[in-house]
């Protein structure tokens, strides 16, 4: 079980790689949306899978509808990206995507969330996996509108023992948009990441 925990050096190295990946993602989003996007410095945390619900609850507001979008990635590293955004922020993103107010309905919002998830996944994981020399492929994302974030309860915990949470806040210029992007990786992948990180650390 101790193997599933990253030591200080490994966590440092991962933080650096993530900084690079998120930097690249920020550039991509700015280019695609034609707007200055700002991705906060990613925070890395390893938690027990059954604590995810409590973590999300702490990070979110109670009784607010949230879109939760997941996208699987497969390769040497397996896992899921989870993008969580409240409904009003999602609306602001849609406006950022060039949609008019009267064009925005739940269906359009779903599509926008899927796209943004896909963009964030590709931008971060592609770069990260490239840095680790472990290419991955993506499945199409799927999305749900939840009455409250606690409805996500235990959806993931049966598949994972430990979860590396790489979370970041996304801000767009002028617009009030706040979303959380989480990368959840499987236990097996945590070991792979550890090995790959150590390989990088050895080369330094």
């Amino acid at each position, binding site marked *: 079980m101790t193997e599933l925990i990253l030591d200080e050096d490994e966590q440092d190295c991962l933080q650096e790689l993530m900084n690079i990946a998120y930097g690249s993602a920020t550039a991509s989003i700015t280019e695609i949306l034609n707007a200055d996007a700002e991705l906060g410095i990613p925070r890395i945390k390893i938690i027990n899978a059954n604590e995810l619900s409590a973590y999300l609850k702490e990070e979110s507001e109670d009784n607010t509808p949230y879109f939760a979008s997941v996208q699987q990635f497969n390769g040497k590293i397996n896992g899921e990206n989870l993008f969580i955004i409240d409904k009003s922020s999602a609306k602001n993103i849609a406006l950022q995507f060039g949609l008019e107010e009267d064009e925005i309905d739940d269906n359009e919002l*779903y599509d926008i969330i899927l796209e943004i998830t896909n963009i964030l996944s590709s931008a971060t994981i592609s770069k990260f996996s490239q840095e680790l020399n472990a290419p991955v492929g993506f499945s199409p994302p799927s999305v749900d509108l939840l009455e409250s974030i606690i409805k996500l309860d235990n959806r993931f915990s049966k598949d994972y023992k430990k979860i590396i949470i790489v979370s970041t806040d996304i801000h767009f210029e002028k617009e009030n948009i706040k979303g959380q992007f989480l990368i959840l990786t499987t236990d097996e992948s945590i070991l792979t990441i550890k090995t790959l990180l150590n390989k990088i650390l050895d080369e330094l």
Partner: protein
Amino acid sequence: MKLRDFGYICNTIDNGIIILDKDLEVHFWNKWLESRTKISFDEIKNKKIEDFFPNININKLKRKIKTSLSLNSPTFYNTEVNRYLLDIPLNNISSKFFDSMQQAITIMPYDKNNDIAVLYIYDNTLLCESNFKLTQVQKDLVNKNTELEASKEELLRSYTTIELLLNTTMEAIFLFEDDSCTHVNKKAIELFSYSNEEDTKEHAIYDLISYSKRDIMEAIIDEPFELEMIKKDKSVFDALVQIKIIQKDGKKIKIITILDISELKTKERLLAQQSKMAAMGEMIENIAHQWRQPLSTISTAASGIRIQKELNILEDKMFYDATDVIVKSTNHLSQTINDFKNFIKGDTNKVLFNLSENIKTNLSILEGHLKTNYITVICNLEDNIELINYSNELSQALLNILNNSNDALIDNKIEKKFIFIDTYIKNEEIIIEIKDNALGIDKDIIKKIFEPYFTTKHKHQGKGLGLYMTHQLIELSMKGVLSVENKDFTYNKSTYTGACFTISFPLLKK
């Protein structure tokens, strides 16, 4: 092996493949699309896709292509959200859920330098149909579940009501299914002093009655009966028990209800005692009446012979006559005492006795009392009737009825007061009929006069308590029948109305 060219694979794959540039001009259109859209590659080549499919959201498609090229990564059209990119009508007729083919699309960069992307189109119609059907089934299930929940709630409400009813009743209730106790109410736990339902069920019913009386539980069905029951602390109390048996779902369900009547029994005993005390009071009054005459006789005889002795004129004859009178009178007094003793002494055994003698003794006890009230008693007694029963209890019952008539005659201020006592045998039964001419009992209360506490309710002195005890004595103890009715009758050419009490016993078989 030499690999076939790009076109061969693209044209034999079971998906749609389009190569588009960022301005949505078509550079490749495979056979799969030709056959589904009826648009040939030659027709659409170098044309803008929206010219053939005007419903396409151009901005969205351009954005997705741009994103894919920019990220060098796939972008997607999700079937659930977008349904389709190309509007391709479906031609199937049976079980048609959608008008157009449901599609999932993956966009990949094809030539980044020239901003060209490749679109893979997957026909997801079958999957969507299955999803659609599943959603319908799920909706049905939700509806059914809602109905089920409603029924469950209704059932729960009924159950709560029944439980409430069972728990507010005065009776302890035990429910048995095929001889094992399944339910007890709160009263049952409380009555037998057990700590909880499980504890009570465990000791269900047979532990609660004495072993010798268990047969009764099997024998008497539907009729309430009295039984002594045992509490957890082994104390005993009187209970009224009723057993009902019903058949339900092939199971024998036995419902046993138990009412604690110990308080009632105590009151009854107290009542009997009070009644006896009252009767004794009346007896003493009667004795006083009876003693006055012989005492006066004794006093006269004694003073007579004393004076004669002092005057020296006492003759032997006078002395013997006077002492005879004194002895006779004291015998009479002694007899009165015996009658009184017999009366207050409770019967322990049934004895053989003559009915008319019993009645005459009772009348002699009451004689003084009746005379004072100017009541004439007319007896028409058959001499040879014999009974094996509790003679003193019969005396007490008769005295109660006679006292009741006495009170009614006085209360109603009847001028010529009569009490008629008849005994005879009819239809193998011994009949004792006691009637008066006190105008009868109000028809509104005649059915209630044998109920306890009746007197207290109606403040009608002389009815109720005594008559309740009389009823208990005749019916419960002596196993006879006591009834009452108002009667019109003629005596000495005059017509009278009054209450007629009838006591009957089965004829003694010789």
